[in-house]
């Protein structure tokens, strides 16, 4: 009896260790450090600095604004793409092609875009044929937005595609049967019933977009400075780990807010599709 109870308990050990070491401990450390000032004394100094400084607040607004833009553009591209891929005959193959870029390291992709956008890059070479340019593409806000959107698209397409796949085709037929046009069927049935997939997509795009830092430097030319860049600077350049952690905590709080806002409150009912 006690033996069995022990073995049951033992099953939880790996998961407990994992969560303890890789989830709880890092978050606890970040929170702990965020209360240490430069002299390693316990204080609220970092938080005070953050909320008093217009630079940090602007940076926060900036991060949210850019993450918002990236999410919107990603959604605008991903929903129709997922919708059309889902109608295609070899949907799984097309989906694989969409996912494939995620197998390539983000830095490699960033460098590839430098090759495309730079003064001597492919686009400028092409424009040169018509006697235009060279134009400045790299290190502009537009190029940052473009590349960030490109990188996030697969993470938005996948959950939307799955939501569309889960949608019972009878619902579409039922809507058409009751006299709805294609557009009415989409807006009254397909969209509301795939909203959980859209929300999941927003979560998996918006949250990482808040803390993008490599792209801001390599593609955005540090013109866009987000909280991610600030954290990197504090940890690697100014060595102010306390301040870096404080910004980290702010980001975690922002993420929690997003999760709550996009959370599926009636998840038990929304899931009932079949």
């Amino acid at each position, binding site marked *: 009896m006690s033996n069995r109870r022990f073995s049951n308990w033992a099953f939880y050990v790996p998961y407990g260790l994992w969560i303890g070491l890789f989830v709880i401990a890092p978050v606890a450390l970040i929170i702990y450090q965020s209360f240490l000032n430069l002299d390693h004394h316990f204080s609220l100094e970092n938080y005070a600095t953050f909320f008093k400084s217009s630079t940090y607040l602007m940076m926060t607004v900036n991060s949210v604004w850019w993450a918002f833009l990236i999410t919107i553009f990603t959604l605008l591209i991903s929903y129709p793409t997922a919708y059309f891929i889902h109608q295609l005959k070899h949907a799984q193959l097309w989906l694989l092609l969409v996912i494939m870029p995620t197998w390539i390291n983000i830095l490699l992709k960033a460098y590839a875009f430098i090759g495309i956008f730079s003064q001597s890059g492919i686009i400028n070479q092409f424009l040169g044929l018509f006697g235009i340019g060279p134009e400045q593409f790299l290190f502009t806000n537009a190029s940052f937005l473009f590349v960030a959107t490109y990188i996030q698209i697969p993470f938005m397409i996948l959950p939307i595609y799955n939501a569309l796949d889960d949608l*019972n085709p*009878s*619902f579409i*037929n*039922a*809507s*058409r*049967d*009751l*006299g*709805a*046009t294609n557009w*009415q069927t989409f807006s*009254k*049935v397909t969209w*509301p*019933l795939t909203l959980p997939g859209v929300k999941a997509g927003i979560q998996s795009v918006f949250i990482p977009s808040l803390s993008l830092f490599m792209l801001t430097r390599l593609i955005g030319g540090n013109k866009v400075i987000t909280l991610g860049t600030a954290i990197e600077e504090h940890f690697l350049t100014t060595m102010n780990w306390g301040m870096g952690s404080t910004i980290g905590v702010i980001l975690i709080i922002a993420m929690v807010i997003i999760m709550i806002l996009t959370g599926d409150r009636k998840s*038990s*009912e*929304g899931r*009932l*599709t*079949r």
Partner: protein
Amino acid sequence: MVEPIVSLKNVHKRYGDAEVLKGITIDLEQGKFYTLLGPSGCGKTTILRIIAGFSDATEGDVYFNGDRINDLPANKRKVNTVFQDYALFPHMNVHDNVAYGLNLQKTAKNEIDDRVQQALTSVRLADYGNREISELSGGQKQRVAIARAIVMQPKMLLLDEPLSALDAKLRRDMQYELRDLQERLGITFLFVTHDQEEALAMSDEIFVMNVGQVLQSGSPVDIYDEPINHFVADFIGESNILTGKMIRDYEVEFVGKRFECADGGMAPNEPVEVVLRPEDLDITTVDDGKLTVTIDSQLFRGDYYEIIAYDGDHNEWLIHSTNPATDGETVGLTFEPYDIHVMRLHESEAEFDARIETYTEETPEDEGAASHE
């Protein structure tokens, strides 16, 4: 002849090389309860989908009130469907589900409320408007699906195996309710099922289908009493099917004996199949019996005993009897001449009807009436 509300003329449906429908021609009249009956994969649901507009005919024409509607999209057709899985929108409550089609038509708010309430009342769910779909039982979902379709006042209601997900008791209740609803509303029902009992109980007319063809159509009684071939006889109800030989009109030979029967119009000594329904066989003494069989086993089915017996030639006989038999006992089986139904091999429905015409006129009234009007 009443103008049919929906007609299919030589409709074919192919998916690549697979031909799902092989030339379906049916006429459906206003106000009747029709059933497409067949095993799964026979194409019955495809017919429904073609009439509803979810699928199109590869070949052939679909007419609605005399107009060809092959190219009319589903949302413009005056037919509504009750889906097998109900397809109730999970993000709307009962009222909004039923009001869905009316809202699209921009019907006035109070008219919508009235009609929704009326439709819900007719399926006995008057107080369920505010319920969420997830709070409903299977039978209730079924009724909401019906209410959502009839609120549109369609000329024709298509029902795709709507009772298949319900338990036996509820199914029987819903059969009565559906039949009653159809009679009250006076709209044409086209009901798809693989359950022959359901089809026999509810329909004005049944189309028996197999592998993309309508094998036989007619009233439940006609189809049960006069199946045209082995498949129909076997699929509708239970039967003892034996090979035999038509000696001459009104005399047939099977299991090595000759019997008087009520069929005719065939060539002398033509090979045939003979159907004897298990409920038409009566157990009697060996001396009184037309056949002698030995009881092998029996099952109590509640309202009858299902008895399996073998004759001297090892033919299996299925008998339904209200009284139990004794296993191993040798008994006689008796039946009346009109209990024997003779089927020609490879006879089409048109040929069957034509043959019936030729000999029913000369048949004495009492014999002919039992088999065919």
